[in-house]
């Protein structure tokens, strides 16, 4: 078994309607030694977050039925998740104007396909007890 790049195991929730994308993150983060739950809808994500109390949520921004921004709004209202880092995941760039309304709800942004170094950076930041730096604003 290869050494994990992280010192501590996190509870991580992955919410993505694209099953392949959810599986990719779950497999990778599981290999790094984290406890990962992957779900494929916003409503499932909210229910799972309630019981799991994740330390990090990787949340697809563009999902049918319940938009990632709406899911983030609900998660931010849960007192139990006050310390939880929520990272937006999307195939569109971080400065996409559609993120603007929800930008303050997210601690960081990850673009698909996942850059492994960026993903490691984001997780390392949460492992070390810091919140990521935030999502850049659109120009």
């Amino acid at each position, binding site marked *: *078994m*290869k*050494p994990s*790049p992280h010192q501590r195991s996190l509870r991580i929730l992955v919410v993505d309607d694209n099953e*392949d*994308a959810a*599986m*990719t993150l779950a*497999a*990778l983060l*599981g*290999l*790094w030694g984290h406890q990962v739950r992957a779900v494929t809808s916003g409503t499932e994500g909210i229910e799972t977050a309630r019981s799991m109390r994740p330390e990090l949520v990787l949340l697809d921004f563009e999902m049918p039925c319940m938009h990632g921004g709406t899911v983030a709004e609900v998660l931010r209202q849960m007192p139990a998740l006050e310390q939880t880092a929520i990272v937006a995941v999307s195939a569109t760039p971080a400065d996409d104007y559609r993120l603007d309304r929800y930008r303050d709800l997210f601690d960081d942004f990850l673009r*698909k*396909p*996942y*850059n*492994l*170094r960026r993903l490691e950076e984001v997780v390392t930041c949460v492992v070390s007890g810091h919140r990521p730096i935030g999502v850049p604003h659109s120009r």
Partner: protein
Amino acid sequence: MATANFTRNELEQILKACALLEIDDCTPPYLQDFIVRMLRTTNPPLSHKVSRLSAEEMHKLCGFIKESQSPV
């Protein structure tokens, strides 16, 4: 070349497993385990084959994946 050990179909399955990852210059040490895990349910023999690759073969396979992901 390491990829010569794989059939075209096997390489396609490996590329599909890595489709949502952006591979950069260095081969991450966990990439082999990742591919093995992703293929474990869909193609166990191929998963086993990847698990037996040496570090050098894995490095070459990683180079192949990276090249395949590059925009033409």
